[in-house]
């Protein structure tokens, strides 16, 4: 199981801040995004190519995901 987190505009689009996802391993972040879309109709509004982090580190969409990971889907960054 992985914990998917949504932030800022994505949290508003999806209508929630997190989701627990049962996932067949091995899997990538892209698989997490695909399955999130399947499981939550509101998540289909998220862009296909988005920024993501696993366990507090930026990753590419082809990065591997392990059981227990926290996968965050990040809107375009606007810090500073």
């Amino acid at each position, binding site marked *: 199981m992985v914990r998917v*987190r949504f*932030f*800022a*505009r994505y949290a*508003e689009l999806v209508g929630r801040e997190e989701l627990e996802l049962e996932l067949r391993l091995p899997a990538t972040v892209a698989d997490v995004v695909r399955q999130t879309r399947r499981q939550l109709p509101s998540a289909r509004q998220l862009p296909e190519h988005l920024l993501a*982090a696993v366990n*507090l*580190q*930026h990753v590419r969409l082809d990065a591997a995901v392990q059981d227990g990971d926290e996968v*965050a889907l*990040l*809107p*375009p*960054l*606007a*810090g*500073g």
Partner: protein
Amino acid sequence: MSLTREPISPAALLAEVADPGCGGTCLFLGTVRDAPEDDGVTSIEYTAYEAMAAAELDRIRAEAQQRWPDARLALRHRLGPVATEEASIGIAAAAPHRDAAFAACRYVIEEVKRRLPVWKKELRADGTTLWVDPQGRPAVVGPE
């Protein structure tokens, strides 16, 4: 803590990096800017993926420290509502000579812009709010 909901004090940042061995200190403040062409921005609400933003700030600071070992660094990033003219970020870098102070300060702000999981929602004079997307047009969220 580098993430704060309190106003940023330039004096506190400068005090943190003050050192008799440092001959140059660079202070950068990023401030909330009004945008009269877009109905006027009265404040910006900053939100973050706080655990990751704190980790990312630690990493950025460690990288700068590795590149400029003699530099002393202090930084704060605001969260929550920040009014126009107030600082949303403050960075102080002191070093024995000015080149390293400027370079370290510049490195930290550019990496923050590129990597920090922070988002801002503009609150406009007409009551509407907008999530800011620096890479494109902001998406209208609507009145609150």
